[in-house]
């Protein structure tokens, strides 16, 4: 299909990801937004529109928190709106910004993703009770970890995947994140560390998970004409896709995220990627838990169903491997302030495709990459393909 206008990322910025930030949500949003603008040598006055992504209001304890955050995000007296698709929000925010520009309505869009989970007491995880069905699930006293455990179990059983192969992802990403200046939980962990960590809801153990976090990211999008005036190396958003499966997750087989595959096909189609395994140089799939990276690699059609653990074991997905996965260190290494974590992957694609990723730089002059986020009740896939 013919898209009206080409859209490029011309600037990016992010804050540290922290367990508990001193900064308020507004301040986090501002810091990231300001960086993104500065990196493109633009002022907020030059920006036509602002798109914000942030996950549940329950964390901040502010209803309509998109409104509350808008001044920090640069939305004052501008067309400003907030998208919210659960864990998919971070990558989706770039898509939300994309159509602002691709539609021809605006020349620029500042995309900000912010999360301040630490405000929620006694623990942010308790807020997740309210994501379950209000009528027939909440009375069972569920914990968020349950749904990951249920999905992980199904995936492991279906393909007979040993826990070690899954834990390897956590080791890789936490190590990759040692080279990321914003990382909250980077460390040189061993497989033993992961495998002996506290069992929360089997098969999920503590170090399989990326914990609660505060942080913000921002990217500046521009139409082709404007982008070329701002920078010599715009990074193009060449494909976008998103797909939401039915709410009735207990009626679905969780071993494969078909909605991620649908979203990926939509994005690859638009980007002219016909053979993702060959044409994608590196990928940033959503990795809030280690098994999710594998699950999503398959969802992104980068390998066959059940093949992702083997590729990981063979070192294919290491930063110096044939198909680097989460060179940033992902959520497992950098942190998981939900919406900001997804946009962090877009930032990573931006820096990598411009050769600006420093010690994390993927070798071989990468040209095409894909970022993906996921969330809701194992329901949404949001995918963006970028080309340098």
């Amino acid at each position: 299909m013919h898209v009206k206008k080409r859209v490029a990322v011309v600037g990016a910025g992010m804050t540290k990801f922290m367990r508990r930030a001193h900064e308020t949500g507004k301040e986090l949003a501002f810091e990231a937004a300001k960086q993104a603008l500065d990196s493109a040598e633009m002022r907020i006055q030059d920006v036509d529109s602002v798109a914000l992504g942030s996950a549940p209001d329950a964390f901040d304890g502010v209803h309509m928190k998109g409104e509350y955050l808008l001044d920090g995000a640069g939305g004052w007296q501008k067309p400003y709106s907030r998208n919210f698709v659960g864990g998919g929000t971070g990558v989706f925010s770039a898509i939300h910004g994309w159509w602002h520009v691709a539609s021809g309505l605006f020349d620029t869009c500042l995309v900000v993703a912010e999360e301040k989970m630490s405000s929620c007491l006694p623990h942010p995880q308790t807020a997740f009770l309210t994501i379950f069905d209000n009528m027939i699930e909440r009375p069972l006293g569920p914990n968020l970890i349950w749904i990951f455990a249920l999905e992980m179990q199904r995936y492991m059983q279906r393909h007979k995947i040993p826990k070690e192969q899954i834990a390897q992802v956590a080791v890789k990403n936490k190590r990759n994140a040692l080279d990321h200046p914003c990382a909250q939980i980077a460390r040189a962990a061993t497989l033993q560390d992961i495998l002996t960590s506290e069992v929360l809801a089997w098969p999920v153990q503590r170090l399989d998970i990326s914990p609660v976090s505060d942080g913000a990211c921002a990217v500046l999008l521009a139409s082709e004409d404007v982008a070329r005036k701002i920078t010599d190396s715009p990074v193009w958003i060449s494909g976008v896709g998103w797909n939401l499966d039915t709410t009735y997750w207990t009626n679905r087989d969780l071993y494969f995220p078909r909605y991620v595959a649908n979203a990926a096909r939509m994005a690859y189609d638009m980007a002219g990627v016909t053979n993702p395994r060959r044409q994608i140089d590196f990928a940033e799939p959503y990795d809030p838990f280690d098994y999710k990276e594998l699950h999503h690699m398959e969802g992104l059609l980068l390998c066959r169903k059940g093949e992702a653990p083997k590729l990981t074991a063979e070192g294919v997905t290491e930063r110096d491997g044939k198909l680097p996965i989460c060179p940033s260190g992902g959520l497992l290494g950098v942190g998981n302030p939900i919406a900001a974590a997804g946009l962090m992957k877009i930032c990573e694609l931006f820096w990598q495709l411009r050769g600006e990723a420093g010690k994390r730089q993927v070798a071989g002059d990468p040209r095409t990459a894909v970022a993906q986020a996921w969330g809701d009740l194992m329901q949404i896939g949001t995918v963006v393909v970028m080309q340098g």
Partner: protein
Amino acid sequence: MTTREVSYKELIFDAALKAYEDAGVNPRRDVESFVCSSEDFYEGTSIFDEYVPDQIGGALKPVCTIAADGMYSLATAYMQILTGLFDVVAVEAHSKASDIVNISSIYDLALDPVYVRPLGLNANFIAGLEMNAFLHSSGTSLRHCTEIIEKNRKNAVSNPLAMNSGHGPLTRTRLSYPLAAEDVAPLADGAAVVVLAAEDAARNLRDDPVWINGVGWASDSPNLETRDWGKATYAALAGKQAYRLAKITNPADEVDVAEIDDTYSFKELQHAEALGLASGRRAHEMLEQGVFDLDGELPINPSGGSIGMGHTLEMSGLVRVIEVVQQLRGSAGKHQVVGDVETGLAQTWRGVPTASGAVVVLSR
């Protein structure tokens, strides 16, 4: 009205069936993207967007949620179509206000947690402050506000969709001076689905499509301390953007009918001025002259607005749009504006404590 016998999913499903029939589309086959509006705390569920796809036919399709009034989702669907990515997009918004035990405690949660909430005031105080500022700066009187209530209640009597809960002679029961309880539109339940289509697709589906000529949305300061109290700057900015796209230079002349936000009675006048519908004069003067009546030169809220129909939280923007569509089609029945109704304006405001809103210009 309240809708205790159906769940929100069932309410939305009914609206969706009606919309798809009206558009002549099968959502599973013809609708390529779905944009929904919701706010978690109105629903009592976090990440409410999980619960939207099935009842609108969007399962395993591109579905997303904009955390704002339905008119923002409509603007989003409009942008999605303009990119060339989709030809047909559906928009959904709803209100299950009757599921909320105490709406005040929800509004409270929207107040700034550090500067405002500790004052322990009912959120309506913000409307009270704003009303005071507006009455003062515009010379609008309490009597004018009462006339808005009367006008909209009267219009609503002819509207079969309206809740019509306000009856009898109007008193002014003190709420948050100068705001009276009667100035506040009563809450209502409902669901709305609107189907948008790109030009060729639209012409294939209907002989009489209603065109979107312009959209706009804007936010003024979220902080009470730094906003312009008398004016509705967000409405002016949103209007400016929409008018520019729609190539409207003189809204008071070029707009034939308008559905604008009246969550609080005075807001209708404030918005009318901000949107340029009062030709630079005072809206209350036009009101006095009957300009905004159903049979006036520029009828405002022929549906009865939120005051007459009921206030449907984040759905109210779509209610405004649907009324304008009905008016442009000539199918508004007993509350049809008579004469040449070619261009309509729909506007929404997100309610206290926000200074955000959207505008859509439609024509046939």
